[in-house]
């Protein structure tokens, strides 16, 4: 062959009857388009929702999480394997497109450098990476078998083995072509080249044999690839097409801002049937990769409650699949969708079918602590919590279907503006003997309003947090006041339990009070109040600057405005990240700095973004747990495992839950229970009262503020 010739190859070399390709292509394309269409049709039942604002940001995030798979890679090995075979798949698809461009559109693309570098070298290497990835995944899936990967054992196997077979067939074809044509550029496809040499070594030496085998593998490769593509929209590999969409159309609002809803004039409150969800919610269902990461982090699932976020999504998906596939005749259905369970209901029935009680058990939606761990970890940005709350909204507002204990909490919110039934405390109790705590009514406008929150003000245990914070603020010379009896619940428990109406009533009342009192800056000791005041009141016209007490104390310490005696006695300290402070609002650092100032810090295995809920969120504090299914006990076990004698929290609910939980956990372990304390308490105990009494900070350091 002429060494100066342009590198290329003949597209249909050694292949006759190429028209057969097109004969096979049609059914493949029809099955593919049909399957895809059915899915898309399902999404269109959904309600409108704008998810294309800020397109550049969306694109950027899509590139990060879709192409570069940053979120997938948070799990190192599985992430790399996935990256390898998904990119392999992508590159091979591009190579096929290149062939199509050359052969069918007559664009001479397969020659020269493009041919050598991309079509030969890059494609060859990516294909090989894909083989390694697939083998690793198969090994994980069928040999290691972690519990989170329990769905679709059969259909996943079909997909993975099919993909592997197609890849191997591809290399065999390439290798045979290289040896049979004595391809001078063969070495540019190193794996294909090696395969060819291997085959020769195995005895495939005669040209006619090489040609015959080449033809055989060429056609079987084609059939495998086509079959895979036809099957794609009926399998979980569908996420290949849908996940990019769910990543692009992701929620950009802060995680702590629950979707607003219209109440007056709404045809239906919340979600009863699939068609009440938004199109993005329905698209989410098909984007699920069944990776099980959400299942792995879910506290409700961990303690054996019936909720599993993955199953939740897949059960909804199944209901939608039944609907979307309805018009396919029964004879075609199983052939099109092996492994997919098809509901027997009619189209209209399925669309209007009440979800809760049909595909989702009521206990499932009430088990959720809204800890957001699932949403945080999901590699394709599926919004589990918004869906669960939407289902609760319908149950509570339209059906009043809720257990008696949480119902009483809601009733309490309505009657006395707090959810703590039977409390003996009033909001003014905790500061009766603290002369430096005054109400706004007494002081007039101040620098900071201290928003106490029901969970702090109305429980004897957590009142200590309020007293501690007041002591700290006073010591640092902060000008603050409280609302006292004028404060009512922010509405967070009502909102998370699905009673949006009640939430709005309470929120409007508070916004009105705050605006009337000219409040601009707020400190809270409760991350739930913090989140609601900061992220949710804005939509109702209440815009405030909100800081969590750990953030403010950290700042005061950094400014040298608080003298500390030195490390606390009960060190080391382990820190529990409250969901509504950490995952929802990204405050991880301030509490850690406080712990570091107080003693040695030991982290629990699950901390920061992977923190494990205390079990109180989403109104769970007001619901009963079945025996053995207490999230707080599980979290307490994790805290105990660190061996730290002190567990620091930054949330009254966490304090209450963990203080209760560590007793059980310690009894189980036959150990002494660690002390559970809010960081405000720990800092207040460590305050150097002598230095304060002598006047702090000392004059030369600038003196204290009035």
């Amino acid at each position, binding site marked *: 062959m002429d060494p100066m010739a342009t590198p290329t190859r003949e597209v249909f070399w050694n292949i006759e009857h190429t028209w057969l390709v097109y004969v096979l292509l049609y059914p493949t394309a029809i099955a593919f388009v049909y399957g895809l269409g059915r899915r898309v049709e399902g999404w269109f039942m959904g309600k409108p929702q704008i998810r294309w604002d800020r397109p550049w940001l969306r694109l950027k995030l899509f590139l990060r999480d879709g192409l570069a798979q940053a979120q997938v890679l948070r799990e190192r090995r599985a992430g790399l394997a996935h990256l390898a075979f998904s990119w392999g798949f992508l590159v091979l698809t591009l190579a096929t497109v290149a062939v199509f461009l050359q052969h069918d559109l007559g664009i001479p693309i397969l020659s020269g450098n493009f041919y050598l570098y991309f079509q030969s070298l890059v494609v060859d290497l990516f294909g090989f990476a894909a083989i390694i990835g697939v083998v690793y995944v198969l090994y994980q899936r069928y040999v290691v078998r972690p519990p989170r990967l329990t769905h679709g054992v059969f259909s996943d196997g079909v997909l993975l083995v099919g993909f592997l077979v197609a890849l191997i067939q591809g290399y065999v074809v390439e290798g045979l072509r290289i040896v049979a044509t004595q391809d001078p550029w063969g070495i540019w496809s190193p794996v294909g080249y090696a395969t060819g040499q291997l085959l020769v070594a195995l005895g495939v030496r005669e040209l006619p044999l090489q040609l015959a085998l080449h033809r055989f593998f060429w056609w079987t490769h084609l059939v495998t690839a086509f079959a895979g593509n036809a099957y794609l929209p009926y399998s979980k590999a569908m996420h290949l097409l849908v996940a990019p969409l769910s990543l692009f159309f992701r929620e950009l609002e802060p995680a702590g801002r629950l979707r607003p809803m219209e*109440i*007056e004039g709404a045809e239906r*409150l919340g979600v009863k049937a699939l068609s009440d969800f938004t199109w993005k919610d329905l698209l989410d269902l098909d984007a699920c990769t069944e990776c099980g990461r959400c299942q792995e982090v879910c506290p409700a699932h961990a303690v054996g409650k019936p909720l599993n976020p993955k199953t939740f999504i897949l059960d909804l998906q199944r209901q939608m699949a039944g609907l979307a596939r309805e018009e396919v005749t029964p004879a075609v259905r199983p052939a099109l969708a092996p492994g997919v369970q098809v509901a027997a209901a009619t189209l209209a029935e399925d669309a209007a079918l009440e979800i809760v009680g049909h595909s989702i058990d009521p206990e499932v939606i009430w088990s959720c602590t809204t800890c957001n761990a699932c949403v945080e970890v999901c590699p394709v940005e599926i919004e589990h919590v918004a869906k669960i709350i939407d289902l609760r909204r319908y149950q*509570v*507002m*339209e*059906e*009043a279907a*809720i257990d*008696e204990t949480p*119902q009483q909490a*809601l*009733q*309490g919110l309505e*009657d*006395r*503006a707090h959810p703590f*039934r*039977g*409390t*003996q*405390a*009033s909001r003014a*109790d905790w500061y009766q003997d603290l002369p430096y705590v005054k109400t706004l009514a007494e002081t007039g406008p101040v620098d900071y309003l201290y928003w106490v929150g029901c969970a702090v003000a109305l429980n004897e245990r957590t009142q200590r947090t309020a007293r501690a914070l007041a002591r700290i603020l006073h010591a640092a010379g902060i000008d603050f006041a409280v609302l006292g*009896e004028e404060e009512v619940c922010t509405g967070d428990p009502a909102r998370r339990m699905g*009673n*949006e*109406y*009640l939430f709005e009533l309470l929120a409007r009342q508070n916004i009105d009070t705050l605006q009337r009192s000219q409040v601009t800056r707020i400190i809270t000791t409760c991350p739930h109040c913090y989140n609601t005041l900061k992220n949710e009141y804005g939509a109702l016209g209440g815009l405030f600057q909100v800081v969590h007490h750990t953030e403010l104390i950290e700042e005061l310490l950094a400014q040298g405005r608080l003298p500390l005696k030195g490390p606390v006695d009960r060190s080391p300290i382990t820190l529990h990240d409250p969901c509504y402070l950490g995952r929802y609002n990204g405050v991880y650092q301030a509490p850690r700095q406080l712990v570091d100032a107080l003693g040695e810090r030991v982290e629990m295995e699950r901390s920061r973004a992977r923190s494990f809920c205390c079990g109180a969120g989403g109104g769970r504090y007001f619901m009963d747990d079945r025996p053995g299914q207490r999230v707080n006990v599980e979290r307490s076990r994790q805290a105990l495992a660190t061996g730290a004698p002190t567990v620091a929290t930054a949330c009254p609910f966490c304090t209450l839950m963990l203080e209760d939980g560590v007793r059980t956990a310690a009894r189980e372990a036959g150990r002494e229970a660690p002390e559970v304390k809010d960081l405000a308490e720990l800092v207040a105990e460590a305050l150097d009262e002598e230095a304060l009494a002598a006047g702090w900070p000392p004059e030369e350091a600038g003196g204290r503020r009035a």
Partner: protein
Amino acid sequence: MHVVVCIKQILDPEIPPREFQVDPQTKRAVRGRASLVISPFDLNALEVAVQLKERAGGRVTVVSLGGEETPEALRRALAMGADEAVWIRDGALEATDASGTARCLAAAIAKLDEPDLVLFGRQAGDWDQGLVGPMVAEALGWPLVTNVFQTRGENSPLELLQQAEGGYRVVAATLPAAATITNHEANVARLPKVREIMLANRKPITQWSLGDLGLAADEVAPRVVVEALAVPVPEGHCTFIEGETAQEKAQNLARALRELKVI
């Protein structure tokens, strides 16, 4: 079936004891920051009425006598499933007592469109007297069954399930009749649906004054005078149980408890 439920709006009985205060002049509880709620047994009565309506058809009317915040209670009753609401409102009723209240209610019930059954809470959550129900039945000349927790059947005679020691009694009541309702797991008040709350906000509330009821102010003047009303001051005593050994201490404790008739 037309069921009438008489409800009373009272100070939230769940306020912390520290906040409960009595005005020594008027001898009434001070409202303070407490919210107003429907008296608990009245909620049970409403639930019984709504269940009866759901079973037998017909409608439910709620009647309440009270001050400016009464509509809140009536709206909640409407949201729970009542169809109409009547607010008896008159400055002369400010100081009235059980008998005056009963007179007004009886007059209002007589004015309503042929009620078949009138339900009351067993007793109001504030004064706990349990007088109004029987007095209204007396004034109307209707049979009265007390301590009912559920109804059965759809027509007269209606079966009323009356609480009894360790069980219940079934009383067949020829309608029209009156009943006082006690709490039971069968009549836990439902949580109103938000949709119903919104609809209730739009339903009209009928207002009747004493004149509308054909009553004069002196007919509702109080006949009972409250002499004294005070918040009890809880007193704590501390007794140490003596004893040489743990066993002896336990025996002494048991004896002390027996003397106090605690065990």
